[in-house]
């Protein structure tokens, strides 16, 4: 009898062992260094999504292993190799920027480990890669959205583009915008190059004023855009301005003050207009935990990178089979994510909606949704 009981217990123990495995998923993120503010936000989304859904369908637990890359390529390579060879991760989420993400993807590709990029938008990123995917849209899509919206909905025909040539992000967006805007029949009257870190845009805004366009397209990050807006206001330049998700944060509005009133920008999602059931739940849970409703886009995308990975693992018989997970990721159809409905295809790029927001009374206010 005693023996039998022992046998039963050990069988039960064995059973739980074989059922509740722990599966490692790697996260490579810039938690320190110059990109830390964005990396920490994105990681917050990944970790929060993990706390909401820590288990797979079959009861296995997902263990996130976070490695800081300081925003540096050498450290990114070290981190990725460590995750794959020592931690035996089945998939990787990250990294932040397109240059670091391409480093992760270059190494993971050789080991057949799927990578989902939460926020890296450069078009070239997933090209010629079999194991690379992303949940955000690409630069060319975002550039197109602005071009179409400005030309068709706002009836603006001429534009000045200011591009930050130190940022891949900015260059990609500017290129896509120019192509799409000229195709629509619009005219780019001037293109001005600046570099991130610049503060003095007095010469730039004087030139824009002289060119007298219908509107300004400023596909850059918030420090530069807010400076340009302020200095434009100082010389009395009051044309509509359009930016992209690089300014989708409160710091932009704080820095810009009055000068960014009426500034429009594209974003991935708006917490005030949750696109899916899942986003409602997520926002509610987030508000409960942090006391604030304002779910940043990077938080939402971080969460979706995790959610898409989990969804793909759930669709695999063996959730540790990286090849199967990768195929499952790339056949994600109509997935209801936090940031919207996500479809992925063989290229690893996602088809998803974008929203347009406008700064009103010191807050970013939802204006409309653009579907692909």
């Amino acid at each position, binding site marked *: 009898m005693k023996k039998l009981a022992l046998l039963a217990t050990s069988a039960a123990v064995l059973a739980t062992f074989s059922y509740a495995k722990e599966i490692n998923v790697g996260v490579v993120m810039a938690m320190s260094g110059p990109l830390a503010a964005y990396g920490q936000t994105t990681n917050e989304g990944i970790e929060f999504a993990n706390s909401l859904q820590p288990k797979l369908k079959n009861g296995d637990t997902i263990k996130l292993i976070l490695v800081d890359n300081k925003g540096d390529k050498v450290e990114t390579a070290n981190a990725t190799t460590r995750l794959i060879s020592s931690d035996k991760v089945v998939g990787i989420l990250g990294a932040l920027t397109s240059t670091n993400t391409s480093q992760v993807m270059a190494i993971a590709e050789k080991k057949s480990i799927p990578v989902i990029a939460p926020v890296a938008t450069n078009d070239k990123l997933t090209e010629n890669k079999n194991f690379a995917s992303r949940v955000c849209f690409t630069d060319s899509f975002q550039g197109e959205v602005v071009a179409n919206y400005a030309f068709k909905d706002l009836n603006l025909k001429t534009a000045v583009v200011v591009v930050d040539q130190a940022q891949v992000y900015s260059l990609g967006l500017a290129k896509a915008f120019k192509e799409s805007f000229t195709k629509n029949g619009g005219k780019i009257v001037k293109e001005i190059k*600046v570099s991130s870190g610049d503060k003095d845009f007095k010469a*730039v805004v*004087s030139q824009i004023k002289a060119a007298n366009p219908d509107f300004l397209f400023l596909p850059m990050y918030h420090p530069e855009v807010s400076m340009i807006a302020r200095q434009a206001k100082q010389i009395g330049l009051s044309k509509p301005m359009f930016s992209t998700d690089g300014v989708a944060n409160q710091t932009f509005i704080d820095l810009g003050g009055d000068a960014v009133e009426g500034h429009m920008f594209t974003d991935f999602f708006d917490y005030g207009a949750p696109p899916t059931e899942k986003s409602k739940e997520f926002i509610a849970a987030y508000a409960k935990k942090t006391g604030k409703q304002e779910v940043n886009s990077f938080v939402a995308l971080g969460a979706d990178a995790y959610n898409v990975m989990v969804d793909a693992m759930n669709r695999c018989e063996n959730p540790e089979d990286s090849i199967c997970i990768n195929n499952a990721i790339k056949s994600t159809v109509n997935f209801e994510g936090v940031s919207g409905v996500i479809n992925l295809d063989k290229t690893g790029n996602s088809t998803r909606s974008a929203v347009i927001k406008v700064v009103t009374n010191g807050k970013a206010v939802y204006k409309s949704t653009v579907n692909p």
Partner: protein
Amino acid sequence: MFMQQMVNGFSLGSMYALIAIGYTMVYGVLRLINFAHGDIMMVGGFLGFFGMEVLGLPFVAAVLLAIVGAALLGMASDRVAYRPLREAPKISLLITAIGVSFFLENAFNVFFGGVPRAFPVPAYLEVMVEFFGLMMPMSAVIVPIMTAFLLSVILWILFKTKYGMAIRALAFDVGTVNLMGIDANRVITLVFGMGSALAAVGGIFWAVNYPSVEPMMGVLVGLKAFAAAVVGGIGSVGGAVLGGLIIGFTEVVVIAFFPELGGYKDAFAFIFLILILLFKPTGILGIDFEKSRF
């Protein structure tokens, strides 16, 4: 249009000049490129920010706080990191200066975050004024005026006071100065205080013009200001001002008239520096500190 750019260049150049004076003075007495000088400017900007946002001080009081705070920090950095190395090879001094610079940047990054913070500019500095037919914000007028004022104060100290005489003497020969019964270390500390105070003013102006502060704001400005000091003639206060203005003007004018060169803006200061070293190593107004070797 042209005049507008001239004013912009003058305003930017004045800020470089304020920072370059600190470099040139420290170099004059210690032959040290104080790599941390740009970061002291950053600290000045942050102190102004904290003074207004946290302590609720009015702008002028916050500026005074920044000046005093930065001067103390400059003197402390000399006391802690540079004075123990007076007799050491110069390379040690340069390395600690890099260390102090990196420490300030990273400490501010860790404790106050790397995201730029909006600098609360008082409204009276943002009003537009008409000045010889040009519209410009008040700050663009005040910056050059303040620079001229501070420059005359510095020149007065250097040439009309006992301390100034000691500083000038120190620039020639430290050993002899000590023999004359002057405490060279005290004079050097004074120089650090004066240079840092000017850097703080530069930092506040910077923060007012581009209304934000962030931990890395002093890096590039500092390097360019040093290049300006060399171009003007290291060791000469007037040269620092001249060099600052030259580099400020070049940056503005080149982007205004050759926009396709905009991407190279940050390189101008260094290209000037290399050219000056090739053709007139002492700089435009420079004193020949070390005889050129061939």
